[in-house]
């Protein structure tokens, strides 16, 4: 069978001593840098990119992929222990992972997230190997109208899943879209919302926004005069590292569901791990028997998105390698790396460079296994980070964030932007406005505008194009259903609340 032949080719490539070494180095260095608070996968990969330039293309790609999921695990660690997401997708992990740490269940959260990553990633690799050609073909049918509708759905989901009111969530998405406008307009070259500053010509990097509204404003919230510092030390024994049967049962379904969500959204060009983990979180919240546990340390709120995140990260290589369309900023970096090595991404990569595609797939599985083997013993070290007094930790976090932001562009102006977003994030959180929808708006903003303009250009200015294309219409209907479901459940809750109030009055 084809798959067996391809698999053996892949493992032959991936199991060569030098490629295993690159994989080990990538995973270890990626985790190490990724665990440094405020240095996410984006910053980690861009910093370590030059190291790979001396290698052959396959070795470089294998090492970069190792850095990628190592850094991703690292940012899950900081999300759970410090409430600092290194990148957008990890923001979801904070929602329940950090409350778990506060309850002294950090070890369960960390082990759960490592196992969920491993299972989600492994399943996705099998899926990618099996279905790469047909999935790529389906994604090929997507036009700009479909991309637009898909992103509208993702933004709506982000607004709904955020805590707080829908209006505030939507408002934050829109503010994010406005921030996404900043910079040079690709089509006309006009400088928009940059107020004459060349520092803003390239736009506002979502890394800065994320570090500002999540990390800096979290430090700020901890400094409030009457708030106890959120850093909670937790003693744990090796026994606690083993998830209980109840934990396992709780998490297993979410890992499988997360894999489904991740595989689907990762394979679609233009979406990726971020959307997948956001949607997985809302799925988990919807199917849970007690949705009110979410945001207060529900294990499924960590394992589901983590599995989706990793499955999407793996599946994200499909559009990147087969269509040349990166799913997110990290995949864009991978794409740039490929082109540096003279490989033109597109439908011909699988046929022209089978050893690259299948070797990468096999090495991902090895890398995910290494991640699990390396990190479960090291979890004790990550948890010990919590015992450092906050007065020592927060200036250190600030320093790492500042230099991390500086490192993405080597521009001190970005540190000033960070200060601005930190202040804005604090004020927004005081007003009860959630930060996650803002971040998604910033990331998807440029894509949504680009696809809207392209769709309308193709349809000769006819705005009905979004509802006459069947796939686009389907996506919009899903969005409408999600919204309707939200209002329906809210309405029922309010009625139930009223009835309760009535009975209390009567009684």
């Amino acid at each position, binding site marked *: 069978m084809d798959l067996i032949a391809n698999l053996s080719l892949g493992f032959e490539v991936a199991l060569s001593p030098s490629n295993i070494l690159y994989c080990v180095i990538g995973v270890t260095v990626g985790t190490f840098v990724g665990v*440094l608070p405020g240095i996410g996968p984006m910053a980690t990969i861009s*910093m370590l990119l030059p190291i790979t330039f001396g290698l052959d293309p396959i070795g470089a790609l294998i090492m970069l992929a190792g850095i990628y999921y190592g850094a991703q695990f690292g940012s899950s660690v900081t999300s759970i222990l410090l409430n600092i997401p290194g990148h957008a997708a990890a923001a979801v992990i904070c929602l329940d992972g950090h409350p778990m740490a506060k309850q002294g269940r950090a070890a369960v959260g960390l082990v759960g997230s490592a196992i969920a990553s491993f299972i989600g990633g492994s399943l996705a690799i099998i899926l990618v190997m099996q279905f790469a050609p047909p999935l790529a073909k389906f994604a090929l049918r997507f036009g700009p109208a479909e991309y637009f509708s898909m992103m509208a759905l993702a933004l709506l989901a982000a607004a709904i899943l955020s805590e707080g*009111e829908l*209006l*505030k969530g*939507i*408002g934050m998405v*829109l*503010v994010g*879209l*406005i921030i996404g*406008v900043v910079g040079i*307009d690709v*089509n*006309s070259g*006009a400088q*928009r*919302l940059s*107020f004459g500053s060349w520092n803003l010509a390239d736009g506002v990097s979502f890394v800065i926004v994320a570090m500002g509204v999540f990390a*800096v404003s979290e*430090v*700020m919230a901890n*400094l*409030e*005069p009457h708030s106890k510092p959120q850093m909670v030390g937790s003693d744990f024994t090796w026994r606690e590292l083993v998830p209980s049967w109840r934990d396992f049962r709780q998490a297993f379904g979410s890992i499988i569901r997360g894999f489904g969500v991740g595989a689907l959204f990762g394979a679609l060009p233009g979406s990726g791990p971020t959307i997948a983990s956001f949607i997985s979180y809302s799925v988990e919240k919807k199917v849970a028997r007690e949705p009110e546990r979410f945001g207060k340390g529900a294990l499924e709120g960590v394992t589901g998105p983590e599995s989706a995140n990793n499955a999407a990260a793996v599946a994200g290589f499909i559009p990147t390698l087969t269509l040349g369309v990166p799913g997110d900023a990290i995949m864009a970096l991978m794409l740039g790396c490929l082109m540096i090595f003279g490989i033109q991404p597109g439908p011909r990569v699988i046929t022209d460079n089978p050893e690259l595609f299948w070797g990468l797939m096999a090495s991902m599985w090895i890398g995910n296994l290494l991640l699990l083997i390396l990190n479960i013993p090291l979890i004790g070290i990550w948890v010990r980070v919590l015992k450092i007094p*906050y*007065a*020592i930790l*927060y*200036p*250190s976090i*600030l*320093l790492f964030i*500042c*230099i991390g932001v*500086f*490192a993405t562009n*080597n521009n*001190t102006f970005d*540190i*000033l932007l*960070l*200060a601005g977003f*930190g*202040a804005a994030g*604090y*004020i*927004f959180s*005081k*007003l*009860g*406005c959630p930060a996650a929808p803002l971040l998604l708006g910033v990331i998807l903003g440029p894509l949504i*505008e680009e696809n*809207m*303009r392209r769709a*309308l*250009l193709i349809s*000769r*200015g*006819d705005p009905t194009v979004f509802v006459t294309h069947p796939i686009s219409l389907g996506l919009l209907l899903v969005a409408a259903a999600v919204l309707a479901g939200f209002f329906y459940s809210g309405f029922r809750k309010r009625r139930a609340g009223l009835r309760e109030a009535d009975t209390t009055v009567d009684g």
Partner: protein
Amino acid sequence: MTLTKDLVAGLVFILIGLVAVVEAQGHPMGSLLRMGPGYYPTLVGGLTILVGAALAVKGALAGGPRVPQFAWRELALLIGSIVVAAFALERLGLVAATFLLVVISRYASRPFHWRSTLLLAAALSLVGAVIFWWFLKLPIKLWPESWI
């Protein structure tokens, strides 16, 4: 009228939307067929104003939780320390930026002790220099240039 969270958040959204719409008027609008650079920001900014207005009206009429106290002193020190560090990093180098960042930001939380703070700043300067300057080779200088 009480300052509820919804009212203030709505006003903030309206303000941000207004900035986007007003700035967009400096760019060509174009048509649905060929959108100019001003079209999309006007659309998104307009939506932001609408959502903000709905939120503000709701907050003004229906009430809700009031805006809590802001920790202005801590906010100013924390944000100030980042701004100072940004300028110092370029002009005075990593070590001076680290000391300024640590001392100013640390001053935001009480109790504040000079000795432990300076010790922390020294330690972080060393760690920062090793990781960022020596290992990751970021294009930053350690000391003010005139010293060398």
